[in-house]
């Protein structure tokens, strides 16, 4: 780390002409990287000693940045319980998903630490971790003075917990290094379908990718004639955003045994232009054209989920929650007619599934870490998560105990196939991406490439140029 310190001095010397406030943005980030995390044993968690006490940080206030989400609604509704338990006040700001990460990124990058805790996805760890913005929660979890026994780390689905762990080295597998966030709620990517149209057309949920394309095409061709006005086969995301890649596309990609990047002796190399990947991508685009939504390139989860709800889409290959909230009683015209299925298997029967984990993280620059940790502990603890799953809409539990809770199971049984699907894929659901800092750039460009292939461009040339472009950025 000497080199960093040296560089920083040099940089500050150069920047001496800039006025005082020029430096915080720069040095804050630098300091975050250089000091907090690199000192190894220097975690603030080590300052917590003695026996565990929920009231340890009584009177403090924790500031939280939250994304507008049903899970958040459950959290906010239950905050009183936390304050009663700990004497800690929670102030929070809620932003819609479209703007949430911009807010969070700007806030973290400024080095001001306006928020002690926030929601993030596992992918964000790859962007926020290396600059040192995220607190390594490992020392906190391991410190029995800071963490109560009832938190029960073993109760988490292990793949979820390891998905938020990383060694901050591009290409290094997840599950090693620091714990930069805690899983809190998650989404697995499966197929939800309209039982009515399937029955009427005599269709069965697809078990292979070929079948999926066939079924999708069949619905687009036949459903409008069978009383489903304007219905098409399968809703998948298609907007020019990283979020287009990670749900259905990445799941099917992974089930086909394909990788986004390969790691050879520490070097990360793009692999989305392997012959198999090119063939798969071409087929995917073909499927969208023959059985996907019209104006697919503008499709985000809003459009996908509302089309399923409006009976415009026969299937939805996306996050299970996107379908779930259309499926619950009274939510949409299709509610009551939506069933779940794990989706097509890979050629070798793989049900590898990509996931999105709503996680909770702590700012490395928080001045309130002890209280923030208590909050994280509570929010990811059994008590709150069980309540959220049963009384509110915090579905897809990250804890085994909640997923097996009879009350929760009872509740979810109302949606056909939901629990079965969940249990089928839960063990095989993990992050299918190769962790690296340029994740957002890579997947955004990937989505753009997908759009171009869908628009009729040659798949291999588009993907080759994408790979060429990414090789220089990622490698």
């Amino acid at each position: 780390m000497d080199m960093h310190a040296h560089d920083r001095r040099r940089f500050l010397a150069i920047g001496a002409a800039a006025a005082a406030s020029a430096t915080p943005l720069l040095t804050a980030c630098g300091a975050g990287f250089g000091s907090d995390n690199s000192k190894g044993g220097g975690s603030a968690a080590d300052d917590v000693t003695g026996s565990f006490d929920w009231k340890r940080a009584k009177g403090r206030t924790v500031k939280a940045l939250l994304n507008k989400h049903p899970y958040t609604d459950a959290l906010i509704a239950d905050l009183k319980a936390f304050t009663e338990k700990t004497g800690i006040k929670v102030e929070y700001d809620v932003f819609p998903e479209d703007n949430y990460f911009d807010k969070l990124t700007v806030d973290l990058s400024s080095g001001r630490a306006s928020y002690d805790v926030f929601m993030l996805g596992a992918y964000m760890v790859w962007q926020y971790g290396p600059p040192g913005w995220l607190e390594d929660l490992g020392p906190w979890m391991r410190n029995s003075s800071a963490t109560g026994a009832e938190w029960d780390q073993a109760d988490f689905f292990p793949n979820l917990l390891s998905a938020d762990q990383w060694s901050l080295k591009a290409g290094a597998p997840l599950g090693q290094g620091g714990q930069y966030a805690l899983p809190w709620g998650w989404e697995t990517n499966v197929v939800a379908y309209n039982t009515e149209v399937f029955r009427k057309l005599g269709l069965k949920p697809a078990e292979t990718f070929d079948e999926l394309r066939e079924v999708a095409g069949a619905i687009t061709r036949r459903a409008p004639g069978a009383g489903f006005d304007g219905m098409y086969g399968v809703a998948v995301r298609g907007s020019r955003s990283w979020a287009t890649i990670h749900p259905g596309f990445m799941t099917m990609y992974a089930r086909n045994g394909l990788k986004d990047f390969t790691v050879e002796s520490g070097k990360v190399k793009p692999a989305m232009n392997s012959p198999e990947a090119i063939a798969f991508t071409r087929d995917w685009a073909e499927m969208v054209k023959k059985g996907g939504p019209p104006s697919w390139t503008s499709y985000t989860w809003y459009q996908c989920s509302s089309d399923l709800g409006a009976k415009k889409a026969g299937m939805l290959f996306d996050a299970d929650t996107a379908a779930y909230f259309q499926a619950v009683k009274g939510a949409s015209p299709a509610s009551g007619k939506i069933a779940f299925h794990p989706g097509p298997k890979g050629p070798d029967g793989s049900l590898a599934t990509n996931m999105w984990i709503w996680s909770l993280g702590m700012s490395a620059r928080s001045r309130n870490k002890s209280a923030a940790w208590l909050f994280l502990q509570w929010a990811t603890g059994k008590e709150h998560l069980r309540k959220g799953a049963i009384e509110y809409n915090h579905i897809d539990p990250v804890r085994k105990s909640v997923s097996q809770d009879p009350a929760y199971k009872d509740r979810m049984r109302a949606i056909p196939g939901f629990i079965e699907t969940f249990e089928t894929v839960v063990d095989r659901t993990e992050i299918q991406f190769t962790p690296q800092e340029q994740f957002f750039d890579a997947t955004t460009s990937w989505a753009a490439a997908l759009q171009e292939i869908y628009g009729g461009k040659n798949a291999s040339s588009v993907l080759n140029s994408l790979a060429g472009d990414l090789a220089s950025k990622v490698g």
Partner: protein
Amino acid sequence: MSGRASPVPEAGHGAASGTGAGKRAVRAVPAWRRSLRPYLLIVPALLLTGGILYPFGLGLYYTVFDFAASKPQPDLVGIENYRRIFAQSSFWDSARVTVAYAVGAAAVETVLGVAVALLLHRASFVGRVLEKILILPLMIAPVIAAIMWKLMLQPSVGVINHLLEPFGLGGVQWTDTPTGALLSSIAVDVWVYTPFVAILALAGLRSLPVSPFEAAAVDGAGWWFTFRRLTLPMLWPYVLVAVIFRFMDSLKVFDIIYALTEGGPGDSTMVLQIRAYLEAIRFQRYSFGISYMITLWAAVYLVTMVLVRYLGRIQNRASEVPG
């Protein structure tokens, strides 16, 4: 002085007293203070905006480093960021898209806005009623307008295709092709901002002198001749102000495209500010992203300077037109 005001308005009271030699010393303001006066009036405005633009200078300063989330200890790289920008074909693609968008939007808004203004200027019954709600679209925030348009244009559940269906035009995939996406974004811009041009043009029309038109009418000049030779030249300065503002704003369009296409499909609507946003905020490459924005700013600055010069000349010429 009030009590002693002379009933006879001789050169009597106030500063005029002492008609001979200045019995009362008159207060003289030194020349330097007088020449300072206009600056004193303008400086607060500059400070107010300039103060806030201090961060802009800071941004400019960042651009000579390679500062990014992945490189928190930046190195001085000089003009490397700019060199990279200009070397990227994606920059030139974006520049092309941006210019196409800005020219398209500003041109359509100008033509449509002037046309609407001319029609409203006739002050028919219909016109007088509609004039009252002319600026309604301007009141919807562009980002919300874009979201609503996106919803309306969505082929599956959108209302526009639903309405077009009886005419055999259903199933148009508005934003799905590169051209379609660009035209749709321009259409939203046109929807939001045409009233802005129209209202400035209408104001211009209302303030034109009457006499040249009466003279033309007496001479039996046709509508087209009157429009080409009288209305348009005299109206142009007013319209040009609107065009400058619109052109400037559409060169740095953000919210409409952000909400409508995010730059897709492919890179077909990837205007400069969206790319800059992705680079600086989404991908956390500040120095590079901000260099992008500075480049955009410089381009807008130059284009506008030319336009404003032209405006100045036009306004001078217009003021020489008798009447």
